[in-house]
């Protein structure tokens, strides 16, 4: 094994190490949303949509979190969940990026946005 191949293998090992998943559902274009942390082994087999539904069905929310949930629900009335510009599908890991906490602990982060599409069509001087 060459030195380059050895380094590559170490990198792969690092990436495949089991690390927690932080999933955030953000209403519209807000900066912050509802967050849930899934420990390794509790998210790999489930679809991203399924994980999102788990967050949306949470009940023990603080007042601030309830307000965010209301905002998400308003967006989802006719809206969709998007991640990185496309409608969510598949698993969370397909959309995840690796990030680090301030303490240096690695985790996967997936931001999902609840967006009610704005289709356009009405202009004050009536273009359509």
């Amino acid at each position, binding site marked *: 094994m060459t030195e380059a191949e050895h380094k590559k293998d170490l990198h792969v090992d690092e990436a495949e190490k089991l690390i927690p998943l*932080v999933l955030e559902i953000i209403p*519209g*274009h*807000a*900066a*912050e949303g*509802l*967050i849930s*942390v899934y420990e390794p082994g509790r998210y790999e087999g489930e679809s991203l949509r399924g994980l999102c539904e788990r967050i949306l069905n949470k009940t023990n929310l*603080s007042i*601030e*979190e309830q307000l*965010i949930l209301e905002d998400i629900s308003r967006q989802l009335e006719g809206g969709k969940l*998007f991640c990185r*510009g496309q409608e969510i599908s598949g698993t969370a890991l397909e959309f995840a990026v690796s990030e680090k*906490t*301030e303490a240096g602990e690695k985790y996967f982060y997936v931001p999902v946005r609840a*967006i*009610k*599409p*704005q*289709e*356009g*069509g*009405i*202009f*004050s001087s009536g*273009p*359509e």
Partner: protein
Amino acid sequence: MRRLLDSELELFVESDFIYLPLLLDPSIEKETQSLFQSGSPGKNTAQPESKTIIKHNTRHFVKTIKVHSLLDSYKAINAHHYNRLRDDCLRKYRLTQGADGIFVDETLKKILFLILPHFVRNNKNLRRRKLAEEEVLDFIAERIDIPQKYHEDALAFLDLEPLHEILRGLEDRKPVLKPPGEGLQPASKLRAWFHEAIQAKVLADERYRVKKALQVRQQLSREKPEHIAIFLYIADMGSIEIDGFGFSRMKFPKEYLIYKRTGEYVLRDYYGRSYLFPDCRVAVSTYTPSRPFVVEKYKHPFLRGYQANQEICMKAIEVANEPTASNIIRILEEGITALLYGYDARRRNGYHSLDKTFVYIPTIAFEEYRI
């Protein structure tokens, strides 16, 4: 008159009058000598205490203008210079309209404490909670590099003693300034006195403003200087931007343009080809908050042309035309959503289609964005 005060002449002040050096042409000299020989060098019947011509050592000076008349009428005589002196004086005590007004600007508070926290991520914790106003200002102070000048200004702003002193002087009806010294003096000395006198007059005229400023500053006395510096910076610069969210003051007082950057984004056409759109600012004005628009010269299927400040073509939004924080957030979000998620490749909705349609209609082209 200003030219005389700016000159290097020596002037004589007596009985509140400015005397200028008398030109020495032979006929004037003869006339003056005869006046002094007769013992009445231009006695003024209306003001017997002041003479028209006075002699100091070997030089003669002729009476010109009353110092206090000049002071009282200077606003009319030289409005431009008066206003400059007035502005300098108000700036010295941080009494400019913007400086104190900014602390009672409810629209600005709405933007800083309600709209900005919605669009800007301000904590890394998993816990979600609304930030207190102080925490928002701490966050802004961390994220914006406020020049040292504004920190110094903030300390001066919170020092109430100079304003107290001005008010005490005005309330005790003390003369705003001692009269100028009498006798021979360089024009520069009289000019310095004159500028101080104008400033004292400005403060007397602005008594109401001084009083109001003092009230506002007394309420702010417990604020952190770095928080005051943020407001002074905004009063001066008119705008800030953090993480793609920003605002800038408009020409109308207490009205702002609030915007959020879209960042680069991709739209797909009918054939699944991708188009990378550049970043732009979607904005609403607090003056007419009902329609979002794109600030930059920009093209998009939902914009009529390729120019700046175009309204985004949108489905009607059911919000009142009031600039409440929630309405502004909602309208900004709808505008961004329209640009990022509104175009339907199959329906080719909007003014323009990303791909060329079979029926050729000259329209905006997006080929240069294709990736």
